[in-house]
């Protein structure tokens, strides 16, 4: 048995007997710390995964997202191998083999063609990629801003906190889609700007408030005080001690932002207010301006693939978010672990 005293001695003394060498570093080095951290992260990931898997809806939704990701990847591959760009390009293609556009599904065009003679499947697949780009960009911008703002507001408090929170209140009070409609009247919005605007609105808005309340509970933990006593600067404490602990919750809100971004894009494209090449919303817009939407199920391939994709991808991200909620928030779990 080792007494605490001898333990302390071992730590305070230089290790005896071994000569100082630049190659052998006996203190826990940076990479060793990183390894330990990675191992810890892996363990908590496994624990979280076990809880996540319990939610059947969550797993199903994750599978849906993976399926859509595969669809997004498949489009460039198909265009490079089997599909001729003149016929299958989602925007400029024209199906010369048919005359009755919009043509119903057939062997050459598995989901038929749209009123302008373009292949619907190709449009669907190429839009998937831009939806992912949009959703993930918006989510990253939101979470980047919201995590920083939340941590900074919680850490400093006072005037900084008040300013950011009033700003968040203002943004929450504004209906987002209406604001985007107004913006689209004034500016030419493309995919990147749209993602940026949605990200900024989300990041300074509601997500910042939620992350700030979480950061407040982290700020009073003993290890923050320990870090301050050890001489850690403000910047160090915020970015090394507070923000990593906010990340699980940030991940959760990324999911909800993706849902919001895809939905907003679809609505604005449907109203014909965006400057995009192709998207699910534009596909429905094309069908609607041609008057095919009120044909009901007769022209189903113009509406159902795009509409269902929007619904499924949005709800998949939303439901994955909810399943993650049970991982992050132990009070929602069915069993106390």
């Amino acid at each position: 048995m080792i007494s605490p005293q001898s333990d302390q001695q071992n730590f305070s003394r230089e290790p005896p007997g071994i000569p100082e060498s630049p190659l052998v570093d006996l203190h826990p080095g940076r990479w060793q710390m990183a390894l330990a951290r990675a191992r810890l992260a892996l363990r908590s990931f496994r624990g979280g995964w076990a809880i996540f898997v319990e939610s059947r809806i969550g797993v199903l939704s994750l599978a849906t997202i993976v399926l859509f990701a595969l669809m997004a990847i498949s489009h460039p591959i198909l265009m490079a191998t089997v599909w001729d760009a003149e016929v299958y390009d989602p925007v400029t293609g024209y199906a010369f083999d048919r005359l009755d556009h919009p043509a119903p599904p057939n062997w050459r065009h598995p989901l038929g063609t749209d009123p302008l003679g373009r292949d619907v499947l190709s449009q669907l697949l190429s839009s998937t990629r831009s939806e992912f780009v949009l959703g993930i960009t918006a989510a990253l911008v939101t979470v980047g801003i919201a995590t920083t703002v939340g941590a900074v507001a919680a850490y400093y408090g006072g005037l900084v906190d008040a300013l950011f929170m009033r700003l968040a209140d203002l943004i929450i009070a504004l209906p987002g889609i209406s604001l985007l409609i107004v913006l689209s009247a004034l500016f030419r919005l493309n995919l990147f700007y749209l993602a940026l605007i949605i990200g900024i609105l989300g990041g300074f808005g509601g997500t910042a408030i939620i992350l700030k309340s979480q950061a407040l509970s982290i700020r009073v933990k003993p290890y923050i005080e320990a870090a301050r006593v050890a001489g850690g600067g403000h910047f160090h404490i915020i970015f090394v001690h507070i923000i990593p602990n906010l990340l699980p919750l940030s991940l959760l809100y990324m999911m909800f932002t993706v849902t919001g971004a895809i939905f907003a894009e679809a609505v604005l494209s449907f109203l014909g207010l965006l400057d995009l090449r192709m998207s699910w919303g534009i596909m429905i817009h094309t069908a609607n301006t041609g008057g095919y939407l009120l044909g009901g199920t007769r022209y189903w391939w113009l509406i159902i693939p795009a509409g269902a994709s929007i619904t499924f991808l949005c709800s998949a991200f939303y439901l994955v978010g909810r399943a993650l909620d049970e991982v992050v928030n132990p009070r929602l779990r069915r069993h106390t672990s």
Partner: protein
Amino acid sequence: MTGYLAKRAGQMALTLFLIVTLTFFLVQAQPGDYATFYALNPDLPAEVRAQIKESFGLDKPLWQQYLVHMKNTFTGNFGVSFGHFPRPVLDVLAERLPRTAVLFLTATAVSFYVGFFLGKAIAWRRGGVLEYAATISGATLFTAFTPAFGLMMIWIFAFKLGWLPVGKFLDPLVWRGAEVSANHVFSYMLVTGAAFIAFAFLVLFFFRRSGRIGSAPLVRPVIAVAALAIPVAWAFSDIGYLALDILRHMILPIVTLTLISFAGTMLLTRNSMLETMREDYVMAARAKGLPEKVVRDRHAARNALLPVVTSLVYSLIFAIDGSVIIEGVFSWPGMGMTLLDAVRSEDLPLVMGSMVFIGLFSLLAHVIVDVLYVYLDPRIRYQ
């Protein structure tokens, strides 16, 4: 309470000021010059152009324009709409605002009630078929592509079944011989609705406060009699058939808006209930031997309601956006459709005016939720 309301009103004024500022600078930041765009519009006669230039100070530097814009906005002068030419923006908006308010308030109230009821039920019997069905259908409706869903509703109920009209506010064939305007009839309908709600609350308040045991069962019959008397009274008036026409046009948009927005409340209530159900007082209530229904409704759900009301602000904003889209799809001539039409026809004064009013609308909703919260949670008494 009064002090709190005054403070909230002050904050609201500040927020509104910021929204107006934001719209002004957004318009200024757009490519092209708003001043020339406005004053050089060929649709305007020369004297109107000169008048606009003068009243908006379009020949002055930016900061002066901003001050003039502020003064104009807060004195209710939003300029003249391009699309509805001789009419001022405020006039157009005053006509459209009540229509949106009715659509929005009815749908929000119904969807909140339905969402809370379902959320309570699925949390209570966790893991049942009902939970899966409600979660999946709720999330699907919540994330459903609103325009496509609206068009699907039109297709089913208006085209295939033919039960309800396709869209718009009224049927011109019914109104051909009518001597009154639609706005006239609609404002009477609004007054009736508001009076009924006020009456119901008064009855509720009176019977609750009178404290006599046995008077509470009277609440429902009294309200039911009033609810029956209203349609009868309208049927005997000579504008009853016109009101019925407007009412028939209202059903489909309201149902659609309700369907897409109840899921948010439902899923949140479920979460909140799951947290409350673990509290000691719920176990205590069970241990006392109270019936399950009482434990659920009076002990668990009453406390689970609070976070749901807090987030009602979010769902209200969601519903405002939803009603903008729904109005566009159903051609319901409210604020949302005004905004869409104005954006499409580059009717900038109307765009700015509708944005300010939509902002005002959501701010009001915000304050109402806060006041509701004070009423519901006796622990909070704002100073």
